Every structure is written in C-alpha cells, then in structure tokens.
C-alpha cells in the first residue's frame, strides 16, 4: 500500500477502467494496484503480496490477465482496464460469479476477485477449457482456503449444458 499525497512530482494520466474515464495525478512510480485501491477506492482488487506472487490483484488489461501490482499506473494509459467492479456490464464475469456461488468456490473470498478475473481471461479465449487448462489458467492465483477443487469445478461448469 502506498498513497502519495504530495503534489510535487506527480503526473496527470487518464485511465479507462470498466468503461469509465478517470483523470488523476499519480507519482510515476505508483502501481496500478495502489491507484485502484487507495486513490479510486476500487477495493475489489486485493492486495496480497505486491510482488506478483499471489494473483489477488489480478485484473484484465486489453484482454490479458495481469497483476496490477506489477504495472506502473502511467503504463496503463490508453488501455482498456477491467476490474471485478466491471461485472455489471460484463456477462461473462456474471456467469463466472454465478458458477462460483453455486459450486461453493468461495470461502474467505479474498482471492476470489482475482480468481474470477483469471477465469474471465481464460473463458474469453477458450470457450470450453479442459480441467488442466483451467488449472494452468488459475495457477498464478494462490488460494489458501478452498484447495482449488471447487474453483476448477465452477469454471468447468460454465458453458456446459
């Protein structure tokens, strides 16, 4: 977590997040995770480690799954940023959410938004992934509660029947 309140040494950027434009001043070194959470209060994206090792802060930029802690906010200018808060306008995320609820893929829920973004990134490219493809697709997202089984089941159930 790092919030910079100082006015000196910031740059003005605009970010397009979930279809909405945000014009903000950030320090050049600020990560997108901090911008999302501390500046824009989009706290569905979670802080887990700040070094790309847990996936709790996963979001989608231009269709690709990334750790928001591993991107400098200015680097995200001009790109389409999708976070968990974008679910209302994203049918695929809503399907994944429903599957997570139905299959019991949520426990403490702290890894859940990142997991859902990983599932969204997978399913947008691969309509009917195999179990191993699903495991691979979420293997950058750590979960300490579920043992992953129900998460894999949930993702696997989407687009079936």
């Amino acid at each position, binding site marked *: 977590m790092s919030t910079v309140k100082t006015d000196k040494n910031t740059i003005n950027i605009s970010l397009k997040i979930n279809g909405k434009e945000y014009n903000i001043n950030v320090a050049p*070194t600020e990560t997108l995770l901090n911008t999302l959470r501390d500046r824009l209060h989009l706290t569905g994206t979670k802080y887990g480690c700040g070094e790309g090792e847990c996936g709790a802060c996963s979001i989608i930029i231009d269709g690709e799954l990334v750790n928001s802690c591993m991107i400098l906010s*200015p680097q995200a200018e001009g790109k389409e940023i999708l976070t968990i808060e974008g679910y209302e306008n994203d049918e695929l995320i809503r399907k994944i959410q429903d599957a997570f609820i139905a299959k019991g893929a949520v426990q403490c829920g702290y890894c859940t938004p990142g997991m859902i973004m990983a599932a969204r990134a997978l399913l947008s490219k691969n309509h009917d992934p195999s179990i191993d493809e699903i495991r691979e697709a979420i*293997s*950058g997202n750590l979960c300490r509660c579920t043992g992953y089984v129900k998460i894999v089941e949930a993702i696997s159930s989407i687009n079936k029947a």
Partner: protein
Amino acid sequence: MEYYSPKSIKELLELIDKYKVEAAIAAGCTDILVKQDFFKDKKAIIDITSIKELKNIESIGDKTRIGAGITFSNLIQSKIIQQQHQALYQAAKVYGSLQIRNRGTIAGNIVNASPAADSVPPLMVSNTKLILLSKSGEEYICIRDFFTGPGKTILKPEQIVAYIEIEKDNTDTISFYRKIGTRKALSIAKASVAFKARKNNGRLTDVHFAYGSVGPTVIYSKSAREYLEGKALDNKIIEEVSLKAFDEVAPINDIRSTAEYRKLVVKNVLIEELKLFA
C-alpha cells in the same frame, strides 16, 4: 522523477543517453517492482512498451530476431517460436505465471541476469546474439559472453538490449528445456537444463548444453558438449555425459535448494531426457 514513454528507438536512445544510470527502464516491471529501492537513485522512468519496433518476432533466414518488448506470452503464441525454437518455447511456458508471462519480456529476463532466468539456457544453446543499441551505434554480443555475475552484465548504462537474434532449429534438431522448480507454477528454478543438437544417422553434432541456477550465471557447457559431439546416444554415453554435466556445474546452497541436490538433479534430468532421444 520524470516519466517518459518514447514511441521510437531513436527517442529511447536519446533519453537513455541523457539519464544513463539514473534511467529506470520499465517494460513488464515484473523484476524491477520486486526490488526494494529500485527507483531510489533514478531520475527518470523510461517505459519502452510503446515502442512498436521492439515488439516484433521476425524471421531472417536461419535466424529469428526477437524484439526487446516481446513478452513470454508473445513467445508462446508465436508460430515461429512454437515451430522453430522448441527449447525456448518450453522455457517460456514454465516461466512464472500467466500474469507474469503476459507482462515479463524476454529482454527483461536477460538483463535481470538471474542465474535462474528461464529464457537464458535455451538462448545459450541456440547461438544467440544480443543486439545492443546506444546513441553511438550498435554492438553484437554472443549471449554466452554477456553475463558477468548474478545480476551483472557487460551492458553499459547508455545501452539497451534491443533485439535477440536466435538460431532456428533444423529439421534434424533435437532439444529440450527442463526446469526443476520449487513447484509447478509461480516457480523459480532450483536447476534447469537446456540441450540442443543435430542428430544425423544416430550421431549428434552441433551439441550444446546450458545449465541454470547452478552457478553465478547460467553456465554454458564445455566438457559435456565436447564429449557428446559426434557420438551416438546409448545408455553408457548418456551416463557418461551426465557425469560430465555433474562435474561442470558449480551450484551453491540457498533458500531454494542445496548444492548437492542441484548437481544430482542436473545429471539425472539429463539421463531422463536424453534417453528419450536414444
């Protein structure tokens, strides 16, 4: 702190020349944002991800030229890499996690100069040249001569690694990259081995081995490759070449593994993998 996002190599080289050691070159950021105090003595962040010239994978005769901005996911998705650079393709697939592969670049992996870098052993067995650019010109360097220690390279402050030029596999090429990691994903190598050779009438020529995480830099094999050159693989030869590998790696104990294990596993992985080609 200034922030720049140059659109061309020319612009980039001007900026690097201006800031030199005070420039923080940012691409995927998957290494630099993990380093505490990385920005401490920097005056400018130079984001190279908007430079289109650095985002190509081009086929040039018997070589492939990879731009510095190419990510590991780009490598995996590239038909050229899939078909003509098997060892590199295998390494790209086991690098980090999907999130890291989507951001991390091959040039970043090289300049970070970790002995555990997944892309480096496959590059070393493929006669790879790095094309270094600076305002004063370009320089070709063999990747085997690029690293001087953990985190250390011969790259000058006003230079960047702009392209990676790698020799293609031939129809008779056999190769592999095998990583023994801390786990199956989000994993750093405890040891890794890349191998490439040409196999004709059972005999191997143009043999190369490189080993990761078993020395201060990735190690390019001398004795194992010299031993195997011109020989045919059988159980005895495989045993012998694996012992050469055992002898030529120089690992240490660290938080991920032990020196003893690393030596053994390099040898055993060679046995396991080479038997598939026997």
